[in-house]
């Protein structure tokens, strides 16, 4: 049993020089075989392992990570957590996750710093406001909070937005979800890792999956840079590298990998209270707990596995953000970075079985999978444990692309570069 993180443990440590703390997770050698292998130690892989052990009692589980846990998109995202999607399959799934987020720190005994500070979509014209009202109605029909705001109400929350009528992009209103917010991304990876490890899950870093062990149409294990490891069931959970890893098993997916960038400014006093997003324009901002303004925009919309972003894409997002909130122009940019995202061909994720026995898939998170971490882990664990989808991920099957049952929130069709 690990020492729980608590004020009491901290106080106890004050008398022994804080010497009682142990590493948050072990660094085990891989065993010859496991009941379940999860490929990819991002947020989703670690959450899946945790729920497999906790909810389904399956503890003979390994998470194989090619580099270090938290070095992928889980540690690169802009941490927005919300469930304000228009389509019921999506908002029901993300709302299930949002409910888990609200209790996650307690559940994991790890402070993930979830901060439900409200997330608003701005509307810049009548068309926007109609779409936002429709989205809000759809959400409220399924019991999810959503509130339309007038410019006056917005001014109370975000006084620095340019709400004048002669603004370049006038703001006519917004749709806010108060229960949405941000979390500390690294803590999510570490919290799930520590909790999964405590239940017996082996987290094996620097272990890249390079191939699959296959008998006929069944996958019975993986080849890795640390040798062959056998498994009853194998789950792919590698986000941006889904196409590559599925390709090792001979699968072609409805996914193309793209670069997504983000940036952060120097830290300043509180100036952005909520999360401000505009889908008509393409930018979003929030203020981190350290005070930096975190900003993002469109993906670099051509295929790439390089974690190098095109500067003009950032420039575009910055220009839009500065236009809407002119005070931002006074800030200096501190850092920029990017990640490889798995853009699916309807913009929705894929969680479920594959045409190959023993092989399961969790992929297609596009630019929005951080918020899904708990729900993704929960439903993928269910699928890996029972061989069948949970009712929440049943719509997100891989077959839906062939049967025409796509879940296309933005109605773009099979063109991830236009999403």
């Amino acid at each position, binding site marked *: 049993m690990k020492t729980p993180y608590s004020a009491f443990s901290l106080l106890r440590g004050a008398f022994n020089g804080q010497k009682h703390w142990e590493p948050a997770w072990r660094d085990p050698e891989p065993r010859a075989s496991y009941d379940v292998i999860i490929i990819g130690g991002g947020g989703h892989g670690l959450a899946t392992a945790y729920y497999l052990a906790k909810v389904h009692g399956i503890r003979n589980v390994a998470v194989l990570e090619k580099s270090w846990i938290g070095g992928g998109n889980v540690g690169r995202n802009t941490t927005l957590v919300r469930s304000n999607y228009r389509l019921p399959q999506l908002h029901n799934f993300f709302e299930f996750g949002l409910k888990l987020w609200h209790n996650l720190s307690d559940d994991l005994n790890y402070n993930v710093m979830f901060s439900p500070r409200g997330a608003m979509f701005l509307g810049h014209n009548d068309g926007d406001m109609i779409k936002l009202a429709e989205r809000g109605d759809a959400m409220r029909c399924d019991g999810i909070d959503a509130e339309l705001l007038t410019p006056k109400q917005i001014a109370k929350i975000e006084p620095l937005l340019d709400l004048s009528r002669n603004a370049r992009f006038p703001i006519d209103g917004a749709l806010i979800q108060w229960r949405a917010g941000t979390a500390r991304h690294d803590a999510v990876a570490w919290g799930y890792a520590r909790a999964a490890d405590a239940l017996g899950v082996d987290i094996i870093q620097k272990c890249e999956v390079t191939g699959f062990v296959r008998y006929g149409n069944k996958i019975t294990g993986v080849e890795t840079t640390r040798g062959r490891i056998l498994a009853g069931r194998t789950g792919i959970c590698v986000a941006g590298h889904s196409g590559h890893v599925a390709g090792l098993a001979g699968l072609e997916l409805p996914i193309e990998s793209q670069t997504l960038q983000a940036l952060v400014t120097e830290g300043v006093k509180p100036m952005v209270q909520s999360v401000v997003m505009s889908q008509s324009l393409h930018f979003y901002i929030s203020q981190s707990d350290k005070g930096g303004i975190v900003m993002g925009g469109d993906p670099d919309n051509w295929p790439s596995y390089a974690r190098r972003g095109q500067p003009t894409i950032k420039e575009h997002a910055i220009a839009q953000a500065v236009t809407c909130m002119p005070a931002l122009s006074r800030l200096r940019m501190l850092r920029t970075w990017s990640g490889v995202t798995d853009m699916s061909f309807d913009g929705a994720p894929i969680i479920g079985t594959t045409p190959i026995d023993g092989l399961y898939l969790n992929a297609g998170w596009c630019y929005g999978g951080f918020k899904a971490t708990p729900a993704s882990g929960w439903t993928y664990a269910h699928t890996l444990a029972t061989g069948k989808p949970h009712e929440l991920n049943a719509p997100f099957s891989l077959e839906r692309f062939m049967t025409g049952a796509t879940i296309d929130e933005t109605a773009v069709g099979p063109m991830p*570069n236009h999403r």
Partner: protein
Amino acid sequence: MYQITCPHCGPRAQTEFTYERTTDSVVDPAADAHTAMQALYTRANPMGLDEEIWRHTYGCRAWMVLTRHRVTHVIEAVKAIGPEALA
């Protein structure tokens, strides 16, 4: 940012170009439903070279095929396509 050598205009900034899709995802109008869906909805998405259709959208607007590496971004070949290539 990198440059793409347009077969008609020579080297230009990548920002003048837009990516369309891979060559193997062009749907043959005569294809049966399964093959058509396969072309539309699956990609090899390799961590290496692929054949991609790009357009010089903010330039001469012609289409071309790039053989481009998806990790290094090195463009190994550019081939003109469409009526311009035949002229």
